[in-house]
């Protein structure tokens, strides 16, 4: 429980840092620190699938935000220290291949697709939820948090569309208030 509180405190600290910083790139990095510690908190709460999703979305958002904040290309050096660079690249590739092989080995064998969790759902779903429709039982009783997140995403999309396409509040004379908005 202590490490969870440490992670939560770090998340609050990094969020405050992300708001207070004036450099855009630094605050993007601070936001990604929040996301990474959120992913670690999910791992600590024994929810690895949510942690993986959080990590992937976080990396995607980080890449998009960095590309949006940096106008010129990221510097990429090709000269010098080629031996060190090649060794590091080979080590990373070997590590990723090993981890992938281990992950593939732990998958269920071919022809037996039923995992532990889904067999529990199928055996106890009707008794524990009372719903004959097992899909509704999983999506609205076992996994209602996902439904809540989906509802949040849809409402956010609606708010975004209505904000972008609103009639009032747009600048009629373009470029007049740009300095204030920045």
């Amino acid at each position: 429980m202590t490490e969870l509180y440490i992670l939560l405190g770090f998340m609050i600290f990094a969020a405050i840092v992300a708001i207070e910083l004036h450099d855009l790139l630094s605050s993007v990095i601070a936001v990604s620190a929040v996301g990474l510690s959120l992913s670690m908190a999910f791992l600590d709460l024994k929810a690895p699938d949510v942690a993986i999703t959080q990590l992937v979305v976080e990396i995607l958002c980080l890449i998009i935000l960095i590309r949006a904040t940096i106008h010129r290309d990221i510097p990429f050096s090709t000269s010098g220290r080629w031996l060190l660079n090649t060794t590091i690249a080979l080590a990373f590739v070997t590590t990723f291949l090993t981890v992938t092989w281990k992950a593939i080995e732990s998958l269920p064998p071919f022809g037996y697709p039923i995992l532990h969790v889904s067999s529990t759902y199928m055996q106890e779903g009707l008794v524990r939820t009372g719903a004959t429709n097992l899909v509704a039982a999983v999506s609205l009783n076992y996994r209602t948090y996902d439904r809540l997140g989906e509802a949040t995403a849809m409402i956010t999309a609606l708010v975004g569309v209505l904000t972008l396409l609103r009639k009032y509040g747009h600048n009629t004379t373009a470029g007049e208030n740009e300095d204030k908005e920045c």
Partner: protein
Amino acid sequence: MLKASESHTLSLIVRTAARSVARLMFLFGFYIVFHGQITHGDGFAGGVIMALGFILLMIVFGREVSMEIISRSGARCLAGLGALLLLMIGAGGLSGSGYFFFNFLGKGTPFHYWSAGIIPLCNFAVLLIVTGVLVGVFAALTSFEMKAGRK
């Protein structure tokens, strides 16, 4: 009764067919949603069907006529009400037993209509959210296009 606005000139056959088909679509969407706990489909599928019914009315009879049934602010209110209802269901489980989204209503007997506790309520909330969001987004996009075309 639905009457086409003056600016719209879709033919009589299309208008008559759309009138009856839209009612059937609303009925089918309600059926999908409110039988979600015992047969296939849930709030999302039913909400999409009902939103498609509104969009059909919007295409055939013009935006002004369908806006009288459900306006843009009405669609926003619908989505917000659905989200609020979903949160209240979760908070009800939290206050009843200490777990967020706990099934605090009775489970009932399976294969009967009144069964599965909070699942029909969640279906209704998801229906409100999906219908409101899809109708609102479609109305906003079409009105924006008309406004840009006038310039």
